[in-house]
């Protein structure tokens, strides 16, 4: 009885090897098929037309939270709508006509009579836009390339909070778009609160555009929060 149990175990061990051998044959077959039968020409052509671009996006500054959970200071991402007016009047008028067809954009455009004074300059069409504003989506989808969005942060504080005097001020670093603390708690804990630049790589090839290294906002880039109960003011 014992002998038959052991013989069965040995037999099953060899069954295992047979299964793995079949798996190895399948893997090799697939590898050989990809190497031999699939045409490399189209793949090579697509590979030749790959385009990649890197975007550096500033992370949001961390929040300052009171001991009882009230958020005393936080940053909001806002957008500014800009139009790079062409250098010649005729081109500017043509582009203005094109932009006027976008319903949300039309009332924001400068008057045709004012265009000569704006030629070759960047004009602010609107500011303090948020992600919930429909104009952002319309502009992204339909506007010409000379219309762009510029993201920035606005630091908000809780009105009437007794801790307001301790919080301090921030200023915007124009080079990186990050907020930097200049006084009070904002300055003292700047290393913790400050956001980081996140690199998002966009790659497009013959099949589709693709974002590589896609990370959610919660995972990296944003600064860390501080809680007043844990830090000494």
């Amino acid at each position, binding site marked *: 009885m014992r002998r038959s149990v052991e013989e069965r*175990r040995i037999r*099953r061990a*060899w069954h295992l090897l047979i299964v793995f051998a079949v798996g*190895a044959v399948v893997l*090799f077959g697939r590898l050989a098929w990809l190497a031999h039968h699939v045409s490399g020409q189209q*793949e090579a052509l697509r590979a030749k037309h*790959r385009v990649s671009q890197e975007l550096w996006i500033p992370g949001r500054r961390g929040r300052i939270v009171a001991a009882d959970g009230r958020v005393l200071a936080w940053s909001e991402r806002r957008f500014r709508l800009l139009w790079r007016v062409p250098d010649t009047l005729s081109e500017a008028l043509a582009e203005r006509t094109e932009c006027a067809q976008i319903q949300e954009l039309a009332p924001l455009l400068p008057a045709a009579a004012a265009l000569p004074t704006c030629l070759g300059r960047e004009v602010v069409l609107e500011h303090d836009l948020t992600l919930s504003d429909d104009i952002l989506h319309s502009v992204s989808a339909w506007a010409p390339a000379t219309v762009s969005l510029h993201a920035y942060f606005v630091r908000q504080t809780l009105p009437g909070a007794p801790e307001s005097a301790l919080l301090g001020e921030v200023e915007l670093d124009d080079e990186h778009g990050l907020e930097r603390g200049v006084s009070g708690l904002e300055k003292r804990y700047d290393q913790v609160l400050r956001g980081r630049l996140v690199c998002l790589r966009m790659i497009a090839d013959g099949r589709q555009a693709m974002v590589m290294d*896609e990370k959610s906002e919660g995972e990296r880039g944003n600064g860390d929060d501080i809680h007043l109960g844990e830090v000494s003011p």
Partner: protein
Amino acid sequence: MATIFILARLAHEKVTAEARAIRRDLGNATGRLHVYFRLVALLLALGSAGCLLIQSATRGMASQSCFSRLQMVWLLFGLTFLGACFLFPRSFYKRHLGIILSLVYGLLWGVLLFGTKIQGARSWYRFHGFCMQPSELAKPAFLIAFAWFWKWAEKWPFQARFAAGALFAGLWMLPIILQPDWGTTMIYALTTLVLLYCLGMNWRQVLAVLVPALAGISWALARHPYVRRRFMAFFGTGGDLSAVCWQAMQMRDCLIKGGWTGGLFAEPSSFVYVPYRYNDSIFAAAAELLGVAGVLPLILLCLGWVGYCCYLAGRHASRWTYPVYLGAGVMLSGQAFVHLAVNLGLMPTTGINLPLISYGGSSLLTTLLIIGLVERCAWEDKQEEASSMAIAVVSTPAPREKAPLVAGTPLALENGE
């Protein structure tokens, strides 16, 4: 004070006895050292090949040399651990199994509380830039624990042993499922299923295990959208799945571009567009560099390892080491085959890396520990076999001496004297 003194004395006696046992065993280390150095030479060659592959695959990255340098450090570190694993007797693991299990299982649960979340899974301990993945390091402990449990319960009825074995494996996998780390869970589940089958499970029991496993997969698909997206991307269903398909498509491009002989110095390379080309996609990157001819030895090596473990299980295994050999074979070769299948587009992406080759300190250390454990068990089994054969030879009664032939006796006449 008296209690403290007594406890201290007991601890000292235990440590002294342990040290004496180890010294006695190490005293007979000559034969083992020979095997150990051969093993180290082979693994160093394989590991170095892995470092070279990582160096080539990370071409164009800002931290190109960093990965291969770190991998080499881990390799040297791991070979030291392999030495310790190989030089200590297996009775050492049996004696200290409780401590080993408590430590490892504690680390598995502790990572859920104190671990760092990377790419959606809280699977790592991070300490000053040093990362450790406890679910990887738990693999050799799982093999030892399962083997010990199976031997300990050998007097139980098989049904009870099978149910308890499955429950043990389920409890071991529970913290890993909660991380969630589906790739590692799959490897553990596969190992358990194969072990139970080889230890005598019948088809009814196979179904009894498969049904909850399928239920678990369905739960994972329902609970975790990213798992669902991977399955849907693999089967080509559902809306815009470009993010999930990207890795699979780029790996495919690498394999096609590599062809039969590869393009070691060809530009532009496709693998620079493959995510995680130093660990999860290293086979595809290697295939582009070396071609089918260059990566075929990898497939044969994986098959060779499981073949070696099956040979040991069939020829030399004791009741304790049989599950260790098979478990080690399935864990390493199974993981390698899953990695290859993902890279070849035969499975959805799982995040499993290639043992000994992919970048990853925990995985490399675990692979070397498992190899060390298998080699140690094989060496001891062969020694026991040799000594039992020697005893059998010694205890065979000596043949009776023939009576001298005396002239004139019938025997002498028969022999012509």
